[in-house]
């Protein structure tokens, strides 16, 4: 039994490990190790395309996670007091947002936004005082943030709501009885209790956006995120540089995830959620 578990863990981690080991390989060849070197990291980090893609990914992940966390937390708090039909509709939409395949979300967003822009852009051009300076709406960071944020927001609502449901209501009542304003109660009683869930929601949202390929593939327009860059490089051939980028991407998400997990687990340990 224990041996079996060990084998599965090896299956899960050896491929990742191979990428990491070969990212430090001095030679170009995939087959043999030829000594330790960090040259591929240097190559990757001095490649302007990689750096630009990294920047785009970081901006999109940061902005979509921040917006999703705010909107999701507000909604999770508000949903406490909502029942009946509105609640059922909201739950159904969250469920759809999480369950519909990313590829369908990507396609739907692409054709909806392109169609919308095709209508809006001529109107903007006609209304703008200086016609040739009228802004043109197009796919890019904005559409990436909106599309990634949608899934992330559903995730945040689910995580934060579980925490809100496990919260000790009597503390809120006690605070009100002692004369605190609703805002004061929120800031001093509710927020500290749900904060771990909010933080974990933010970190998960960030990793989701940072790692997502399929939605970005459709709605990125002329922008290139890091996964899109990696995907198109792999199509051109496997290079040690990809190993270095891949190892860095994995390292970023692993660190973020371990932090998020330990925050959530600690929260559970205290009896909540």
């Amino acid at each position, binding site marked *: 039994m224990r041996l*079996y578990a060990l084998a599965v863990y090896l299956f899960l981690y050896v491929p*990742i490990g191979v990428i990491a080991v070969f990212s430090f390989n001095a030679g170009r060849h995939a087959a043999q190790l030829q000594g330790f070197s960090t040259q591929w990291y240097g190559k990757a980090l001095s490649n302007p395309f990689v750096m630009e893609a990294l920047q785009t990914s970081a901006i999109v992940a940061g902005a979509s996670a921040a917006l999703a966390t705010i909107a999701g937390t507000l909604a999770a708090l508000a949903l406490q007091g909502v029942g009946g039909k509105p609640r059922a509709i909201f739950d159904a939409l969250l469920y759809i947002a999480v369950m519909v395949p990313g590829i369908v979300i990507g*396609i*739907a967003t692409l054709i909806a936004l392109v169609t919308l822009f095709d209508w809006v852009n001529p109107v903007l051009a006609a209304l703008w005082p200086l016609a040739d300076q009228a802004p043109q709406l197009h796919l890019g960071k904005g559409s990436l943030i909106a599309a990634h944020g949608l899934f992330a927001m559903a995730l945040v609502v689910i995580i934060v709501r579980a925490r809100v449901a496990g919260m000790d209501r009597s503390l809120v009542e006690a605070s009100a009885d002692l004369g605190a304003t609703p805002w004061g109660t929120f800031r001093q009683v509710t927020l500290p209790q749900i904060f771990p869930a909010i933080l974990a929601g933010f970190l998960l949202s960030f990793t989701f956006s940072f790692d997502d390929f399929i939605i970005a593939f459709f709605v990125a327009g002329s922008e290139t995120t890091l996964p899109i860059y990696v995907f198109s490089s*792999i199509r051109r051939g496997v290079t040690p540089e990809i190993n270095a980028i891949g190892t860095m991407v994995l390292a970023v998400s692993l660190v973020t995830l371990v932090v998020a*997990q330990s925050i959530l687990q600690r929260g559970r340990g205290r009896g909540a959620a």
Partner: protein
Amino acid sequence: MTPRLRTGLLLAPAALWLLAMLVLPLVVVLVFSFGERAAAGGYSAAFTLENFANLGTRWAAFKNTLMLAPVGTFLCLLIAYPLAYYLAVKADRKWRTLLLILVIVPFWTSILIRSYAWIYLLGGQGIPRLFDSLGLGNPRLINTPFAVLTGIVYGYLPLMVFPIFVSLERLDKRLLEASADLGSPPWRSFLQVTLPLSMPGVATGCMLVFILLMGEFLIPAMLGGGKVFFVGNALVDLFLQSRNWPFGAAVAVALVVIMLVTVTGYMRATRKWSGGRDDVSLM
């Protein structure tokens, strides 16, 4: 400010977001699926069922998806169950949380990079070369259904382990003691007590993996090399290469309908196991 107004204001950003980026786009897909392809690609308004009538031209993609998604789900289950059992029943309590985190964490890391790792391992310079040097021949692994299934199991195993672990951990150990006291050998206790009681977790895990597999694009794109392709690959081709949006929209609608029908049927069939509410979160 009335509580009602406050609730409304708090919900507004999320509700608008869902409306603009989820409901509206999905409605657009449905509308487009009845339209015609414009001369330059894209969409021109019409009402025709032609796109749905032409679905048969993409039958290969549907067939691959409908065969490999269930097979992949079943393989995940076969490999995940013993691990979940070990974690929930046998593993040292002290290490359980850490071991569980180690299973879940890969799921949240880039599936792109993890599939890439298998290109590396299964490609000409990887395992086939190792076999060759051991004198075991030089099997062709990459760009085969085997490669795609390996990628699938590798990618979705964590999603299967977690729900099964949760239902096994909740299992009342006294039932097993009772079963043993009444003279059942361990294998019989397992078959008659543990296995039936873990069915809600099995059902949840299978559903999650199956749903995600139906929409898979990356794994077949990277490990199937154009030979083993899913509906997702057909969709990318239709939207980004041939720009036949209405037909692509019809394929997407067909995919979602197949998913809904399968999942609803599946949930009906498994309801008898999961009588209670089984709220399994992914974290």
